[in-house]
């Protein structure tokens, strides 16, 4: 980004409109807007619905409502309140999703916090990954700490790898209602092929292989093989076909 930011114009779309890309200081869409071409800016905010057909590079990127980015997105701070779809790779510093985000490629960030749902078709890597709700990762989910509270129904990742991996079932404030839901298809669970980490604590998780240093397999788990080097713990409600110390 150029150092001479004060020369950059702002882009405002109020109501409905479209504009072409370029270098801006601040880009704001209030209502519905479409930007064609690549955008390089300091701030990108959508209130309502916004679409960018090219690449976006912005210090901050915030969607309140719905958003759509076709090209790659590079930002230091990504906030989605509502829903957003990213067709290409996303590189973000701090990523917060309240609502839902659909990433058709990969996500690379320093922290990811999700309340609601996130879907990444490729890999997802971060220093910290924290989710309350549902996530679906087509490739590898890797982070130093993966802290997941499962809600509503099934989450999945092909592989999970990292330092400390904690998967638990979220406590619903709805009480009785939630227990009625949980009788049917609304059963919060996680499905993965392999989970590898230093400290692993799992609940309601189905995996073929879990490998780690200290491993705790909790209620509702169904694991094919656990390999551990340190300590191993298993609660009564867990199903583990085989576990061995290596």
């Amino acid at each position, binding site marked *: 980004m150029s150092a001479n930011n004060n020369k950059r114009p702002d882009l405002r779309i109020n109501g409905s409109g479209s504009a072409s890309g370029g270098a801006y200081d601040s880009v704001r869409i209030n209502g519905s807007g479409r930007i064609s071409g690549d955008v390089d800016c300091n701030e990108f905010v959508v209130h309502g619905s916004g679409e960018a057909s090219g690449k976006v590079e912005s210090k901050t990127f915030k969607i309140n409502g719905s958003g759509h980015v076709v090209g790659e997105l590079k930002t230091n701070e990504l906030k989605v309140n509502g829903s957003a779809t990213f067709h290409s790779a996303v590189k973000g510093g701090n990523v917060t999703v309240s609502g839902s985000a659909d990433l058709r490629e990969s996500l690379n960030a320093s922290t990811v916090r999700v309340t609601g749902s996130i879907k990444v078709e490729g890999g997802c*890597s971060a*220093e910290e990954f924290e989710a309350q709700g549902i996530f679906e990762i087509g490739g590898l989910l*890797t*982070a*130093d700490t993966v802290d997941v509270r499962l809600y509503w129904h099934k989450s999945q990742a092909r592989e999970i*790898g*990292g*330092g*400390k991996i904690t998967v638990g079932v979220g406590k619903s404030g709805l009480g009785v209602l939630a227990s009625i839901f949980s009788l049917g298809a609304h059963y919060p669970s996680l499905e993965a*092929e*392999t989970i*590898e*980490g*230093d400290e692993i604590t799992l609940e309601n998780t189905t995996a*073929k*292989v879990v*490998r*780690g*240093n200290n491993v705790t397999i909790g209620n509702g788990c169904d694991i*094919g*093989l656990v*390999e551990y080097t340190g300590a191993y713990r298993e609660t009564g409600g867990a199903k583990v076909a085989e576990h061995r110390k*290596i």
Partner: protein
Amino acid sequence: MDEELISKKELLELTGISYGQLYRWKRKSLIPDEWFIRKSTFTGQETFFPKARVLSRIEKILSMKEDASLDDLADMFSPDCGSLSLDRDEVLRRGIALPDIVDMYAELSGAGQEFGINDILCVYLLSRHITSGDLSLPEGRTMAELLKEGLIRFHGSACDLILARKLGVFFCFMTSPPCDICADSGFRVIAKINIPSVIEELKLKLI
């Protein structure tokens, strides 16, 4: 070109690193993604690595991480290092190349006194292979011209430089892996040079 592979489990046992470290290094690209090779085994999918390369890389990381941050290490291992440049005296002082070869190269390329990373790479290889007797000076020139072209074409990505001779006639070419070569029997490979590992060697000299 079949390399010996090592499974992730064996790798961790052998090196004593943890899953957390391995994944952290993967995220920082200290271990390139293409070294993570997924294969089906009877226990499901397993990840394997090219044994020799991954072991030497981990040894380097472990020996250096005391005094360098992971990001610095990542820069060092990345095949891309666009902004670096040295002047002629610095190239000589750091023992990258012999003065005659630096001057020959400067004349050939019109590089002047400032050497970018591609120039440094080129004089380094020239110096190495001319002193070892692999190449004559005119052959070195051919190689320098190819490198100049090739490094731009394969910009920042992995590639190999192959020096060969047939019936005494020298020629060279660059490939971008994975790439197998099948040549006739008169074809003698003098050297197969993996550019990213040369850049790594060079960076060790530069820091």
